[in-house]
């Protein structure tokens, strides 16, 4: 089965026409077919191979300004005509509408398909098979054993997410895409007496089936071994307020969580963004320019089209500290007036799309990383960041997986257990220096429309003052 089969267009037109005839201002159908694979290796053997297949549809019905910009969304695994009509009926019913058997007079059918997947037909077949995956994972766990000490557990894991998606809407949207995301990670737990350290690294690839073959198992294992050796005996950081330098690549998670989410129209709709109505105003230090885009080749958050069928853009969010734009989806545009940016994203058919980040990063600045560290007498260098979150009032928190004290402008001893806390309005003006080494890292972002693939990034940046939770 592929959504390229011609009967899908007829089935979709039936749904869209019936929905419009019932009184909906817009009807959208998202179809998805997925083929997923998970493989795990522990020590010297493969311990789990887990394939899964999924298919489903999400039907969304909108009523516009005259009806308060309301929408109803129903998802189903039943892709039969009866199943899809049942989902449509339920979505219509949520808005007080009822299908009447008529066809919509003003819906003339779907236009020619925009097929972004046409050149990607062979991606699934080109993806590595389980034997190759197992070989690479076992190479990784063997390299860990070779390079690291005091290991109690070694793991390698792989996941493949292949998706065929099709979006059709009564405004003439009709587009299809094929997507391929692969991740490969290594992790260890090291223990020596009472000392323990867990370290992990994950590689993410999009759209390139062969990327698994070029993954550097030895380099990853050496990196993990170095971090493990450092962090196993690290002391806990003393709590306090410090200037900090955040490393490049995954250090960008702080901007993603602390500020990026507050620039999504879903937050404007809720009234939870402190940046609402502030386009054109300074919200960050003039050293900060921040961008979100979905176009870059090989980056984890890149998309040929968003999950509402719109091509992605390069969106400058902040330029020299001044707020320039928000990230918007279809509902966000309706409800907030912010124009769509190709940012309507969802984990799967089971979620309605929402404005979400793609590849988000702080642009490079003029300094070297050494200049940033050299400008601090007593502070913290956050080399590897962990996860984080942001609360409903903009309060954020991030764990620091690998940190070092900065003493008299130089890196000092390693420290663990640090958590950075603050709020975006306070911290963004304190990012006073950006280095010239912008780099990006693959990640996952969980929010209102599920977990989506994203890239975070930045050069090394200096925050003049931030609260560091510790012991």
């Amino acid at each position, binding site marked *: 089965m592929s959504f390229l089969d011609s009967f899908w267009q007829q089935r979709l037109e039936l749904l869209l026409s019936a929905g419009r005839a019932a009184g909906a201002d817009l009807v959208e159908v998202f179809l998805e077919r997925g083929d997923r694979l998970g493989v795990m290796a*522990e020590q010297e*053997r*493969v*311990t*789990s*191979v*887990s*394939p899964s*297949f*999924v298919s*489903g549809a999400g039907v969304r019905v909108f009523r516009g300004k005259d009806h*308060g910009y*309301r*929408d*109803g*969304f*129903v*998802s189903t*695994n*039943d892709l039969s005509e009866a199943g899809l009509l*049942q*989902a449509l009926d*339920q*979505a219509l019913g*949520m*808005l007080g509408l009822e299908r009447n058997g008529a066809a919509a007079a003003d819906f003339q059918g779907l236009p020619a398909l925009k097929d972004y997947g046409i050149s990607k037909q062979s991606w699934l077949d080109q993806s590595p098979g*389980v*034997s190759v995956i*197992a070989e690479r994972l076992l190479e990784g766990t063997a390299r860990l054993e070779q390079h690291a000490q005091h290991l109690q557990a070694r793991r390698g894991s792989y996941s493949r997410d292949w998706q065929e998606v099709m979006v059709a809407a009564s405004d003439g949207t009709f587009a299809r895409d094929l997507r391929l995301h692969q991740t490969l990670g290594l992790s260890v*737990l090291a223990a020596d007496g009472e000392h*323990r*350290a*867990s370290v992990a690294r994950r590689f993410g690839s999009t759209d390139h089936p062969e990327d698994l073959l070029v993954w550097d198992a030895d380099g990853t294992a050496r990196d993990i071994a170095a971090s493990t050796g450092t962090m196993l005996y690290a002391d*806990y950081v003393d*709590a*306090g307020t410090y200037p900090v330098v955040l490393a490049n690549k995954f250090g960008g998670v702080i901007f993603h969580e602390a500020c990026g989410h507050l620039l999504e129209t879903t937050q404007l709709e809720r*009234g*939870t963004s402190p940046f609402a109505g502030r386009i054109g105003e300074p919200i960050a230090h003039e050293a900060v320019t921040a961008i979100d885009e979905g176009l870059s080749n090989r980056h984890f958050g890149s998309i040929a089209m968003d999950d509402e069928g719109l091509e992605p853009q390069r969106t400058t969010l902040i330029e020299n500290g001044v707020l320039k734009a928000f990230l918007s989806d279809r509902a966000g545009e309706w409800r907030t007036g912010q124009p769509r940016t190709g940012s309507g994203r969802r984990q799967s058919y*089971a979620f*309605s799309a929402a404005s979400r980040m793609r590849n988000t990063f702080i642009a490079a600045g003029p300094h070297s990383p050494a200049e940033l560290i050299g400008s601090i007498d007593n502070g913290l260098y956050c080399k590897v960041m*962990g*996860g984080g*979150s942001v*609360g*409903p*009032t*903009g*309060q954020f*928190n991030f*764990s620091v997986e690998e940190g070092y004290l900065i003493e008299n402008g130089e890196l000092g001893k390693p420290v*663990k*257990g640090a*958590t950075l*806390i*603050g*709020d975006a309005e306070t911290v963004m003006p304190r990012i006073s220096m950006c280095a010239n080494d912008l780099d990006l890292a693959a990640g996952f972002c969980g929010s209102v429309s599920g977990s989506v693939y994203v890239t975070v990034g930045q050069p090394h940046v200096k925050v003049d003052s931030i*609260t560091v*939770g*510790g*012991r």
Partner: protein
Amino acid sequence: MLNTDQLQDQLSALAQAHGLSRWDMGASCSTDLSVQVDRGKAHQLKGAQRSAVTVRVWNSDGRVGITSCSDLSADGLAQALAGAAEASAFGDLQDPPDLSPRSTESLEPLKREPQATRPIQEMVQTLISAEQRLLDRHPSIGTVPYNGLSQRRGERVYLNSLGARRHEERSSASLYLYARAEEAGRKPRSAGAVRLGHGTDELDVQGCIDEAAELTISHLDYAPIDTGTYTCVFSPEAFLDLMGAFSNLFNARSVLDGLSLSKRESLGETVAVPFFSLWDDARHPANLGASAFDGEGTPTARLPLIEGGVLRQFLHSEGTARQFGVASTGHAGMGAKVSVSPDWFEIGPTPGAGCGDASLNRFQADGVVWIDSLSALHAGVKASQGAFSLPFDGWLLKGGERRSIEAATVAGDIRQVLKSLLAFEGEAQVTPDGLCPHVWVEGLAITGEA
């Protein structure tokens, strides 16, 4: 409606056609409805019809293969079984799971009839009314940005080639209200409450409004806290969250994988103060997610994990139980490598061992931090290291009076926490994650935002 006889016949025939004599299957289907509102209007209305099936097979070498699928039709079952047969070529021979010998034991059903669902427009009206009543509680409460009312009705089955036929139906409903309040010249504050029930009619809507309002208002007058070491009292929900984050202490799978804070020989060791006991009770009447059987068909039961401060038992799947030489405990998932997870914790005093320092009373306390809720556990807990550093909402107590803490983290080590418990205070309270009284702990590091 899942037809166990039909599924059993279909799987048996498919397995036979592939020359497979050993197999099992878990399947589920559900319907969901949820609503969110925004200042008196329906904001987003959602529905879902879900189905899922997972099939495992054992090939002639004894290797296990597994495949999941969202299609419960005959075609979907055939795809899942064929996929599992193919995946079995890569099964682990050293530590393969087996069918649970307890999967055919007689099962004590849970006496919970699924409740009727409510029409979505009725749900919208209920939530709009709740939102308005919460907004009316204080002039500073301007919005309820996070709110939702949802209901679910579903069923699940477990079948295997030993003849196991497990089936259960259940329904659930939830309500959450998180208010945002702001006073002139001060930072916005937020707090909320959640209520669960077997159906919408069971939800304590007024209680949810009262709790959300009381908590939100209590955080309006806030102040920073000095960084230092404090005696803390955890709310039942916060302490259960903390214990849940470190449940690898009791997880036999984690023990075998070297990822637990415990070792095989840890059973019998003192891990907490003598008055502390902890049970896992999937079948507790207050556990709204209760199941009568786990992912391998093994019956669930109430288990003592820590008694009198001593580690008594681990949670097991069929495979871990076999390696430990004990019976499976009903905590398995379903997989090529089977996961083990807790169900619902019950924390309380050890019979005959008291409750610790009976003089402790948070309404008379001075200089004590009351931790109401923890957040960002996914980022701030290092489960295999025992360490945590977590943001929290709470109050600094002065003469028994609460003053909201502006922003702070609490850090410590779970092993040290369990040995630094001072007391249980008051009666145990039911939360979504378990049953627990307020818990006093000394010597925790608190960092305040400067």
